[in-house]
Every structure is written in structure tokens, then in C-alpha cells.
């Protein structure tokens, strides 16, 4: 008997706020966008901030509220990082979308439905610079062409033709760029948008949202589990909801802090403490054994590095200099792991270095020639 498909929806989608005013903790953006809803005019927007703070939610909500379900498909183009987004896609897809003219607003329309289209570019910072530059041409070409004033006489006709089409594009399209790091967006793009920073969510707001979901789904979550959830998700509401759903699927409706830790892939406090203790002991063999154990338990080493860093920063017994020395090594090891280096060797190196820092052994190696 094969299993039957169920409409098992991701909670992240299910509980996404549908209206701009429901977006929590981002008053500034909400104010500007409500204004947009009233007037029907809107600049290009650039949303940036850490993951899980509501950037995509806000962009999608405003698009839905502006156009309603009927026009949404024809007026809004959503592109995110997993779609292929080389320069070609930007050229063809966006151009084709932008080229179709928008109809006039119908009389009996319920939604504001202003006469422009929206292109939402999620995770814009992972686009190549070329693609960003190309995008720039499309959205703002009026400006660019007027700047390039020195044309050969023959080319002028072509340029003008181009310019006219481009002008029509830029009149009818609005871009919403969404990214984590505003510094990765090329300057000319960024300077043409209204920029909004999304703040990380505070613990109270996250908790109230989580509790609401728990109530809707009939889950039982005690205060301790709630605080664990907010500490392992680091202000990222999406991650918190994903963990919650995974735990609910795997362990049923009453969820303990341990359940949450086990689905999140976070290394338990106890294990981190054991490794640190081994570092303090100053005995290499003990540390080696601890690292071997750690790898056999199957915990991810990259996660361990993050948690070691947290533990080291909060450590009271060691000097700032020692902390800096350890952190430097953690950074190097992380880079190596990203390159695909072996987890055991990197972790052993980190632990050995931490041990040296703890016992204030001189930096560098004695016998290196």
C-alpha cells in the first residue's frame, strides 16, 4: 500500500502574513507601504536585512494587496536565487515581462491596481554583477542614455529608438530588490531605490508568533522550550517555524527543548562544554579522543565552530588576547571547511590551537624551519 499524498503545507507558507499591516516589528516600511496603497504610487524598493525578518513577506504582501488575485499573475514577476539568473535571464525574462503593456484600471476594481508592474528579485545579492548592471540598464535606462551624450551621428537614431522602448519599460515597472547584504548590490542600483533596513525580530515578537502557531496547530510548548527555540533560531522567524514544524512531525504534539535541539542540528550545550573542558585540561590525547567522539556522533563541524565561538566569547577566565587568538583560528577553519576540508582534521586543529591559547603557550611553532 503506497502512501497517499496529503496537502502537507509548510507552516512557513501557511502562516505568512497576508497583509502589509500584519508584518511585525518593521514600522517604518509598513508606514511607507500603507501610504503606497492609498496613493497608488511607489518608488523602486530595496529591502535588506538578516534572514527571516519579513522582507519577502512584505514584498509579496504589498504585491497581493495592490493587484488582488486576478491581476497578480500578469502584473508581478517573482524571481529568486534558485531560478537561473545569469545575464541572459535578466535580458529575456524581465524584458518579455516588462514589454507587455498594462491595461487601464477597470471601474469596478476593488484593488488599487495602479498602472505599473512589479518585479520582485529575491536574494538580489547573489546575482552576478553583470546581471545587476544589465538590470540597471532596463530599469533606469532613461538616465543612462541621457548621460552618454557623445554618440556618433548614425547611432543616434538607434539609441533613440532604444531609449523610447526603455522609457516605456521604466514607466511601467517597479523593482523590489531583496537581499541580505546591501553592500553586494552595485552602487548605481542601490542609489536609485528607496532603501529599507529590516531589523532582527525581538524575542517577544517571535515568541508571540510562535505561540500563536502552536495554538492553531494544537501544540504544547512550555516556557523552557520556547526560550530554547528563540535561542537556537537567532532572531530568524522562518527558521524557528521550520524547527517547530520538524519537531512536531517527528515527535508529536508535545515538544521538549531536547526535541527542538535534535531537529535543528545544533550541537547540545553538554557536548560543547565537554570539548572546551578537554581544551582546558591541556592534555592533547584527551582532546583528540573528544574530537573523535564528536565526529562519530555525527554532529556537523561547521555548527560546532559557531557554538565554540559563542562559548569562547562569553568565557570569563581568559584574556581578550587569548579570545582573539582562538577566534582567528576558528575563522580559518571555517574557510577550510567551506572549501571541503576534512572535518576531523580541522576540528582537531582548532581544539589544539584553543588548548595552546588557554595555557598561554607561545604562538607559532617551535620546530618549524
Amino acid at each position, binding site marked *: 500500500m503506497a502512501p*497517499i499524498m496529503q496537502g502537507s503545507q509548510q507552516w512557513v507558507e501557511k502562516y505568512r502574513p497576508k497583509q502589509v499591516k500584519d508584518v511585525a516589528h518593521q514600522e517604518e516600511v509598513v508606514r511607507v507601504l500603507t501610504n503606497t496603497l492609498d496613493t497608488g504610487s511607489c518608488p523602486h524598493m530595496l529591502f535588506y536585512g538578516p534572514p527571516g525578518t519579513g522582507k519577502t513577506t512584505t514584498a509579496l504582501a504589498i504585491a497581493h494587496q495592490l493587484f488582488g488575485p486576478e491581476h497578480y499573475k500578469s502584473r508581478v514577476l517573482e524571481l529568486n536565487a534558485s531560478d537561473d539568473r545569469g545575464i541572459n535571464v535578466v535580458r529575456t525574462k524581465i524584458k518579455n515581462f516588462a514589454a507587455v503593456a498594462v491595461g487601464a484600471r477597470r471601474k469596478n476594481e476593488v484593488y488599487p491596481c495602479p498602472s505599473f508592474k512589479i518585479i520582485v528579485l529575491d536574494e538580489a545579492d547573489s546575482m552576478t554583477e553583470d546581471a545587476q548592471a544589465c538590470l540597471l540598464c532596463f530599469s533606469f535606462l532613461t538616465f543612462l542614455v541621457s548621460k552618454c551624450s557623445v554618440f556618433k551621428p548614425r547611432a543616434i537614431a538607434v539609441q533613440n529608438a532604444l531609449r523610447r522602448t526603455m522609457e516605456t519599460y521604466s514607466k511601467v515597472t517597479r523593482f523590489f530588490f531583496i537581499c541580505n547584504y546591501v553592500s553586494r548590490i552595485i552602487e548605481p542600483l542601490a542609489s536609485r531605490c528607496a532603501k529599507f533596513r529590516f531589523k532582527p525580530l525581538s524575542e517577544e515578537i517571535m515568541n508571540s508568533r510562535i505561540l500563536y502557531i502552536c495554538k492553531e496547530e494544537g501544540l504544547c510548548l512550555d516556557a523552557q522550550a520556547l526560550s530554547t527555540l528563540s535561542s537556537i533560531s537567532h532572531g530568524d522567524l522562518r527558521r524557528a517555524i521550520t524547527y517547530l514544524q520538524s519537531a512536531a512531525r517527528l515527535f508529536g504534539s508535545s515538544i521538549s527543548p531536547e526535541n527542538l535541539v535534535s531537529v535543528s542540528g545544533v550541537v547540545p550545550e553538554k557536548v560543547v562544554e565537554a570539548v572546551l573542558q578537554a581544551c582546558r585540561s591541556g592534555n592533547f590525547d584527551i582532546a583528540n579522543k573528544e574530537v573523535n567522539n564528536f565526529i562519530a556522533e*555525527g554532529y556537523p563541524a561547521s555548527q560546532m565552530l559557531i557554538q565554540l565561538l559563542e562559548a569562547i566569547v562569553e568565557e570569563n577566565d581568559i584574556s581578550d588576547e587569548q579570545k582573539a587568538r582562538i577566534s582567528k583560528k576558528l575563522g580559518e577553519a571555517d574557510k577550510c571547511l567551506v572549501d571541503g576540508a576534512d572535518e576531523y582534521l580541522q576540528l582537531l586543529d582548532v581544539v589544539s590551537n584553543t588548548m595552546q591559547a588557554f595555557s598561554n603557550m607561545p604562538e607559532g611553532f617551535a620546530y618549524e624551519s
Partner: protein
Amino acid sequence: MLWVDKHRPKVLDHVMVHTEIAHNLKKLVKEEDCPHLLFYGPSGSGKKTLIMALLRQMFGPSAEKVKVENRTWKVDAGSRSLDLELTTLSSANHIEISPSDAGFQDRYVVQEVIKEMAKNRPIDTKGKKVFKVLVLNDVDKLSREAQHSLRRTMEKYSAYCRLILCCNSSSRVTEAIRSRCLNVRINAPTEEQIVEVLELIGKKEGLQLPPGFAARIAEKSNRNLRRAILSFETCRVQQYPFTSKQEISPMDWEEYISEIASDIMKEQSPKRLFQVRGKLYDLLINCIPPEIILKRLLRELLRKLDAELKHEVCHWAAYYEHRMRLGQKSIFHIEAFVAKFMSIYKSFLIATFG
């Protein structure tokens, strides 16, 4: 048939080591709300066993009727078309592939297979919608691009197929994929658990085990269950009835590496380095993965070294292993490590004994 396969638990109820995980998986299947799954853990911990048992739980005995196929896909990659060949293992309800075998073209494989599965969507006798399962091995070896394209595909086709991903280290799987899956960590079995399993196998095979024999095998196995069972079987072939003093022979490549280790401890000279090179080549030719060689070598050296040298040596091992990943010819880097070790050890000897 090897004991490893013969005594592999076929259903979730028979799983001995990860009983709690098996129980939870069973619950998932029963509630018919199965998300994408990501299994991670060290090798020989039982990831594959759990996955196969899970498939059986989902689809019944038909999941075990697998056929091995060598398939070619025609893929349109922009301007040119590619022919990709890959070995698949499939039953009526699932397909298993190791997409990383396709090298840098892995992303096309992933997309093609999933799309194809979505196209020929199976319908059962009652006309209900049914999903297929795609098992992907070694997802940690997938390229970044493939992982990125996987993430979109996972969402788009989640109504038609479920993915079960399997890997050794979840550090190398991008956050985006991890957050879309239910992560299941499979830890290596403890030595006690290995002993338990070995004793059960011994009973099934009708063997007499001297006391402490299973424990010794478990100790040597490095918490790798597959290895423990393999060496158990080797012992059986070598000598039966077992004696309590029976030698549990290590793998020959391990012995070879410890020989290399004592070679370089004894003499540090270009001539010795040259001899070691030959031995390293022997190992590589016999398909021992270079990082395993380096790790084993480090382990052997650490056993023999003075405490004050250990930090230094383990640092350089990590350093050269990282370089080996970035580079292409692993022999250079292993040899560089050996040379580095020789130079460190020599200057240590000079500083200590003059």
C-alpha cells in the same frame, strides 16, 4: 552473501541500534506526512540501512525488488546538448542515484531525473495520487550549483516526489537545503551496541563466541558497524572455533601505513622520503582515498610522538589536507606533509639531544 548484507535489518521494527529514530520514522510514514529527509552521520553508522527499511515501510516488499540500470540522459545545456551516463538503482517506487558521479554536470542530472519522475507520475489502482521517492547519495559532494538548483526543484515538484538525501557531513550541504528537509542525525553505534549486534549475528550463524571476543572486535572497529561485521567474518574464515587469544588482524593498508609511520620516525632524510614516496604510490594505486591515508598516518604518528610536538603535527596535517582539496594531485600534498614532519622531527631531535 556477506554477513553485512545478510544480517542487515530489513524492516524498521528490526533495527537494533537506532531504535528511537526508527520509531519516529515509522510514525512519519503512518501519519502519511512525510517531508523531505536528510540523513547525515559518519560511514558505517547505518544511514543506508535505515533508508532502505524506511522505503520498505512506505511501499511494502516491492521496494526490495530493485534493478540496476546504466542510463543515459540527453540534456540541453544552453547552447549544446550533453550525454550523461549514470548508474541508477530503482524499484517501482523509488530511484537511487549518486549524482556526484556525474562530476561538474551533476546539476543537470538532478533536474532531469526529478522532472522525469514528475512526468510519469504513478497512479495506484484506486486512482489515488502517489509519490515516488528519490534517494540521493553523497549530497555533500554535490557542487554548489547543483545544490542551488536542487532547492528550487525540491519546492516545485514536492507534490510528485519526496527526496531522501544521504551524506557524511552536513557542513557541506547548504543551509537552504538543510532548512527544507527534516534533518536526521545518525550517530555511530557505541561499542556496546556493536558487541550486541555481533553477538546476535554469532547466534544466528550458530557460532561459539569466547568471552570478550566481540568486545575486542568492537574496539578495533572505530565505532564503524560495517567494519566490525566485516572483520568478524574475516576472523570466522581465518579460524574457527574462535580462541580467546585469536588475533584480530587489522586491514592490510592500515598495517602498511603504520609501517610508513615508523619508517619516517626512524630516519629523516631525502633518501627515506624517496622510499616513502613509493609506498604512498602503492596505497594510492590500490584506491585508498588520500584523505584517509593522511588521517591514518597522523593517527599513527600521534601515537608515537612526544606531547609537545602533537599540536604542531596536527596543525600541518589539517593544513595539507585542506590544500589537497584545493589541488589536484594528492601525492604532492601527502608527500609535503611527510617532508614537513621529517623537518620538524629532525629539528626537535637536534634541540633535545644535540
